[in-house]
């Protein structure tokens, strides 16, 4: 098996293994160390002997054994015999049968996600910890994705773990009244990961596919386990939980997801159902108004009612302090002016947008548009 195969197995199994250990033993730090140890063992054993039929179960078994070994070695000499007995029992108790390996996997992942997105952590820490613990990315990969030094991410993660210990955060379903906040915090982190990947705000690569894929994968896990989780919630008899989770609460994330769905359903830009997007953005504008929503709404309106209608919506943004120096407003304006055949104004707007962006590929694109080019991004250069 190649290193890439191993990494693939690892990234699919990591949240389940860490979640399972965390739920059973409660200690995030020790669980993570043990999981790292298990991966190391896998990297030695699997290329030689092949992957186990159920790699997740194999990793849970090995990691559990390591965790218990660690407890054992920390005990006094006199306790060793007893600990050895515990170890045998633990192996038997915690090795899932081959067909039962995924029984708790989804639940564990959600608990792990909720823990990583604990409200006591900063937004940046939640994202880093989620990618590390649930996404199975290395510190170096996360650092590369966010274009910061590896030490920054390492410190961020270690501070986050200390913070979790300080607030005594547990691998357990939060109390019902806390759940909406915790879910919001979780959605926020996944949204940040997706957005950072979708348009990297800095640096030389416009699309970081891996971060985007990672966010979709994590969100899918969250969605996949909704049905199971809802049942658990209903069993708790919480009316609040039912309202939030099962009754189609229409918040900003749901609306943005709906907009993204309309975009992804259309086979091309031209075939996009812009009318539906206008309606959804108007709803978003009602529930969570912001200059960014206005900007997106202006694009959709322009697609339905023509560029001049869109341009009229943009005018107030040019004076808004938060958006005046935002390159996107000027880039959108430039495109709409171009559609409206006001080429001189379009050129100036493209140049302004190019001056204001901090993304090098975007700057290249906007500069080429300002120079009257087709706007093909220049590849390769940094």
């Amino acid at each position, binding site marked *: 098996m190649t290193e890439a195969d191993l990494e693939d197995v690892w990234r699919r199994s990591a949240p389940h293994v860490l979640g399972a250990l965390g739920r059973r033993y409660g200690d995030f730090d020790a669980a993570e160390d043990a999981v790292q140890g298990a991966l190391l063992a896998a990297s030695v054993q699997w290329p030689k002997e092949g992957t186990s039929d159920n790699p997740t179960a194999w990793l849970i078994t090995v990691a559990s054994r390591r965790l218990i070994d660690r407890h054992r070695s920390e005990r006094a000499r006199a306790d060793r015999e007893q600990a050895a007995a515990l170890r045998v029992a633990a192996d038997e108790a915690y090795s899932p049968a081959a067909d039962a390996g995924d029984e708790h996997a989804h639940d564990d992942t959600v608990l792990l996600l909720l823990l990583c997105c604990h409200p006591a952590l900063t937004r940046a820490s939640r994202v880093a910890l989620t990618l590390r613990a649930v996404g199975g990315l290395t510190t170096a990969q996360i650092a590369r994705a966010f274009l910061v*030094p590896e030490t920054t991410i390492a410190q961020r993660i270690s501070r986050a773990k200390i913070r979790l210990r300080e607030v005594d955060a547990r691998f357990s379903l939060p109390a019902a009244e806390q759940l909406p906040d915790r879910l919001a915090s979780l959605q926020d982190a996944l949204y940040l990961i997706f957005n950072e990947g979708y348009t990297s705000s800095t640096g030389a690569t416009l699309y970081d596919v891996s971060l985007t894929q990672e966010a979709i994968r994590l969100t899918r896990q969250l969605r996949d386990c909704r049905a199971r989780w809802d049942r658990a919630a209903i069993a708790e008899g919480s009316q609040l939980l039912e309202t939030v989770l099962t009754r189609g609460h229409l918040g900003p994330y749901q609306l943005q997801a709906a907009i993204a769905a309309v975009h992804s359903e259309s086979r091309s830009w031209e075939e996009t159902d812009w009318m539906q997007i206008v309606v959804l953005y108007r709803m978003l504008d009602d529930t969570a108004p912001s200059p960014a929503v206005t900007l997106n709404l202006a694009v959709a309106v322009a697609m339905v009612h023509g560029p001049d209608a869109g341009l009229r919506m943009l005018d107030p943004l040019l004076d808004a302090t938060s958006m005046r*120096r935002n390159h996107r407003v000027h880039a959108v304006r430039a495109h709409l002016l171009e559609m409206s055949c006001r080429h001189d104004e379009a050129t100036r707007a493209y*140049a302004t947008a*190019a*001056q*204001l*962006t*901090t993304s*090098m590929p975007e*700057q*290249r694109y906007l*500069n080429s548009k*300002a*120079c009257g080019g087709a706007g093909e991004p220049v590849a390769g*250069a*940094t």
Partner: protein
Amino acid sequence: MKYVILIYTNPEPWGHPTAIYTKEGRDVPQEQHDEMDREFEALLNELTASGEFVTAEALADPASATLYGWSAEGHLATDGPYAESKEHLAGFFLIDCDSRERAEEIAAKFAQPGGVIELRPAMWPGGDDQ
């Protein structure tokens, strides 16, 4: 000892790498740009491998700057750029090397068409006699 390598240039329009956006840079044939790119890449690899590279940033257009003036009544923020000077700070590298000679050797390799490179030692509170 830490040194900062400051890159002053005036790309038009603003863009990175700045050397291809300056008037002088546009006059240089593509093959020569490619050659300079390769040399620069090799230099960066060398500095990374030796541990002399600390950090670097490319800066956005000076027009995106905000300037803060101070007065006893309070600060006043205005939109940049700082000055309509011919050359702007376009980016910087922070390096850590054993001697001034080594820093000069590195900085010289940053010279590029349509720009000026400035090497400045960083100060620190340790205070030994260099």
